[in-house]
């Protein structure tokens, strides 16, 4: 008597057939063309010709090599067509060009592991200080050692930054949120 189908069938004097599960196709809305909404990513014009597309290295994604394969449950917040395209333990995380534009990220070239940064560029997380490196399309937080405080900011030494790399000088706050979200450092509901 625990099934409404049974109830209704009782109404119709038939009550003893089992119910198989329906095989419904509920394929979600997919394949929409966003080309109209995509805007040209031109925020990096001042980055001395740095071309992100050339650095879109998809060859070595040991942890998350599939650009569709980072679905968390059904939230699907990471993958192709999403703001965070790839998360890689070594390289960091890769954002869609639309997300980079939305977060108003600005990059600055550095020519070695020691350089001056503004106060807004420095990331503080608990006791850690760091900067975001941008290399080959991936953002990664690297620990920074403050060498001295200057008028406009700090002189820092960052291990892991090399000639040709760029660091994020604007939009660091939201980039940090994205990092926490993508790499699950706050034990946010996305297990890795």
């Amino acid at each position, binding site marked *: *008597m*625990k*099934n*409404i*189908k*049974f*109830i*209704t*069938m*009782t*109404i*119709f*004097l*038939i009550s003893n*057939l*089992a*119910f*198989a*599960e*329906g095989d*419904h196709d*509920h394929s*979600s*809305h997919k394949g*929409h063309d*966003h080309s109209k*909404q995509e805007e040209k990513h031109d925020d990096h014009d001042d980055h001395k010709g740095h071309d992100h597309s050339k650095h879109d290295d998809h060859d070595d994604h040991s942890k998350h090599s599939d650009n569709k394969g980072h*679905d*968390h*449950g*059904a*939230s*699907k*917040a990471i993958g192709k*067509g*999403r*703001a*965070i395209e790839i998360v890689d333990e070594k390289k960091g995380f890769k*954002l*869609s060009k*639309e*997300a980079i534009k*939305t*977060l108003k990220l600005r990059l600055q070239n550095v020519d070695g592991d020691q350089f001056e940064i503004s106060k807004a560029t420095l990331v*503080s*997380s*608990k*006791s850690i200080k760091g900067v975001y490196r941008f290399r080959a399309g991936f953002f990664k937080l690297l620990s920074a050692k403050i060498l001295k405080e200057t008028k406009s900011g700090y002189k820092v030494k960052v291990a892991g930054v090399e000639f040709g790399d760029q660091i994020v000088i604007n939009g660091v*706050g*939201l980039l940090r*949120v*994205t990092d*926490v*979200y*993508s790499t699950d450092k*706050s*034990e*946010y*509901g996305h*297990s890795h």
Partner: protein
Amino acid sequence: MINKVIEFSVNNRMFVFMATLLLIVFGLKSFQELSIDAVPDITNTQVQINSQVKGLVPEEVERMVTFPIEYSMNGIPGVETIRSISRYGISQVTVIFKEGTDIYKARQLASEKLQNIELPVGVVPEMGPISTGLGEIFHYSIEAKSPEKDGEKRLLQLMELRSIQDWYIKPRLLTVKGVTEVNTIGGYEKQFFIQPKIDLMSKYGLHFDDIEAAIENTNLNVGGGYIQQTGEQVLVRGVGLLKGIKDIENVVVKRLSSYQVVKIKDIAQVKFDKEIRTGAATVNGEESIIGTAFMLLGENSRAVAQRVSSKLEDVKKDLPEWVELKVLYDRSNMVNATLSTVEHNLLMGAGLVMVFLLLLVGNLRAAIITSLMIPVSLLMTFILMRWQNVSGNLMSLGALDFGIIVDGAVIVIENCVHRLQKKGEELGRELSRAEVKQLVIDSAIEIRSAAGFGELIVITVFIPLFALTGVEGKMFGPMAMTFIMALGSALLLSFTVVPALAATFLSGKTRDKKPFLMSMAEKLFKPTLGFALRFKKGVLGIGIASIVMGVFLFSRMGAEFIPQLDEGDFAIQFIRPANISTENSVKLQRLSEDIIKEFPQVKDVFARTGAAEVATDPMGVNISDSYIMLKEKNKWPHDDHIQNKKDLMNEIKEKLELYVPGQVLMLSQPVELRFNELLEGTRAAISAKVFGDELDKLISYSKEVAEIVGEIDGAGEAESESKGKSPMLQYTPKVEELAQLGVTARPVLDAISTAIGGREVGHVFDGVKRFPIVTRLSEGERKDVMTVRKLPVGISDGFTVPIEQVADIDFVETFSAVSRENSQRRVAVLVNPDTRDIESFVNKAKKEVESRVKLPEGYFIEWGGTFKNLQSAKERLGILVPLALLMILAMLYAAFKNFAQVILIFTCAPMALIGGVLSLNIMGMPFSISAGVGFIALSGISILNGVVLVTYFNRLIKDGKSPDEVVKEGAMTRLRPVLMTALTDIFGFLPMMFSTGLGAEVQKPLATVVVGGIISATLLTLIVLPSLYRLFIKFMQPELNKEAYGT
């Protein structure tokens, strides 16, 4: 009894007409006074107890506040469930009482218990507003016409706007009848901040307590009673109240031994600054202030929303020139839109019923008389609804099918016309009025059992719906009640007003002119019936095959509780990392709103991030509830590829996911979101609640469950409710060092709470408005880890030490929230499935989770959401519907005294199944309780057809006709009433079946089942029933002699 009523009505027509007129007047009045809403309010009786617990982390809030309150509430009689959530600074305990408990009694009992709970100093539990899930009926925003761009100026502007809301708009709205609370979120409370400079305080040997004491000693007015003069008296007062920043700056804190005076301005900066917010509001991508009006429990949401709207129009006139008040959400719009759907369907249905009556009866007067019963019975229903406090909504009024309702009247009037015509033919002359009267009485009496009995059966099948409790009871009880009221009204009218009108207006020359439609139907039916009677066993086979096929298809169907009401607008819940700051959460929200606003279909988008002033919904700042208000459909751009809400929601979601990182999106609707929260304590259609003791384990299991559920087809969004841990800067007093200094830990703890958390040390009054004076470090110093290590701790008068000397300072992690249900901790997995087939989805999810997640002892999973309502409804109906059917069998047996005939009549019901199931399949709908109600109604309606046919067959047998003649003549003669009732029933529901208006989806399954079922039931009944009657004639008429049975 009924015979006497019919005779009385015909013989006292003026009395009947006057009574009807009176009924119409009362009906109209009742309609005006009827409580109108979109859907029934399904919220249970619950009391929310909110406590602001400044400074405590969730686990401490749980231990020191939530648990004692929960424990105390457990003893209250009638308590069914207790849920709680403990967050940083907030404790909320929700006590759910048994169905039917008076809310005021429940609050009284809870209030009495609250008096005796020992809670930490300063924690004052407060009960939430007396409201429900439908309570948030009105949202508005307060904004400057020209928002300041500069940060400081904008801050002051937001403070000013917040003051206008708190001290001007809110008090006026609270006077509106039916408003129980006005909640505010957004902006900044105007606060005077004293921001001490740590180095200067150390220099003068000052503690934070010194500032507090200085303000307390200065900021007060005193009364001196009065003095008497000659014949007069003069009041005396001392005025010390501080009036603003300058006054605060000049308060003396200390006099040094050098007689130098240290004022507040010497050691601190006094300014307006940002409070530590637990929530923020955004409107169309800008920070703003949002006010929400809560409706008092039991009020009429449309009426209250209209009153709020009107009051706000008054308020607007008195607002400063630079302020703009904008209505964001007005519930009356949704109610009006859904009611307009109901109204449209009812009117269309009634119109179609009238047209078909005219086409099928072929007698204008008879058609008009029957059609008149539609508005009259509706008005009578309004009177009864008003009397029984049943509100008019999608579920109650939306379920009315005038075709079904006037079935009784149709049968009576059809028989009158038929008999008048027959008598006229027999006599070969026009009938006198007296003869007409007598014939009407005879006809009505003759058919009373078929008409009355059939309708009584329909009423009986609805009775089990009253036994539903909880959400399903609140949803379908009013529906059953209204349907029965309407049927009862129509039944009464068909034995009173219909005969009276027929006796007055039907002509003595009445000729039963066969309308074209009927002639056509008879032409088609006659050979078909003849063929069927030749192959009776074959027909029996077809009947059985149809039933089997219906059952098979039925068994393959998915199921849901009821279709989700389309509220017109929609909501998106953004969930961000637990440790996100308020500012960053607001930034992400603003970016998201900018994107949403780009869609030309969107009128406004607004959001609440975190908890509001009255924390009815204690969300963390990492969660934003966004409401997307859409333009009217005709204002959507025609050349855009998005032309419906579902596509728009998907496109917005896809674009947000591509453009804005760091957040999970969950789609919902404004009312749905609140209902889910209030009913289940979670904010999704389905929730898998993992219970246990250790939060770490619970979070881990919940993530595992979310992953598994997320992999199932149709999962949509599946997300663990827990946002894990947040970092925390923890100071632990060094006991030994403090002992050496000869002080307790208190000064250390006070320094933390005042310097970082802020302490209210007094108020500045501006008329009746009062604004807090708060001592706290500046924002720059608060977030500087180095500075907060140097906080001065007052050891003795004039002596301070840096806090790092007397306390260990570490970053640790804490849980962002602790949820409990029935005294156990739990973490829920929230699922908003894509599929409408909730039942098979949950069954599959349960199976998968049970097989893949191995829980240790003491841990278990409970599934909740609308699925639970579906289950509960099934269980109750599973017992009660068969009982009702047994009752019908008994009623039929009492009427026909022949078991074979009873069974034959009863077979009409399964013959309706195939049509109902097929129509649901064609329309792509799963089974739902709404469709179930359709099947229940259908069983009654189809049995009515059987009753009409078998009654007539029996009469013909009595008249001495042979079995073959009986079935042929009987079926041909009764073709018209059967077709008339069927077609009116179908056309009464047809507009609802194809309606696309707001809210139409809720009753579509009901209409679809009834329309499809009646088609199959009518076709099969007209063919199969006569064949079976003839085939089993010896069982139908055992008293006939064997020769008469024939073959």
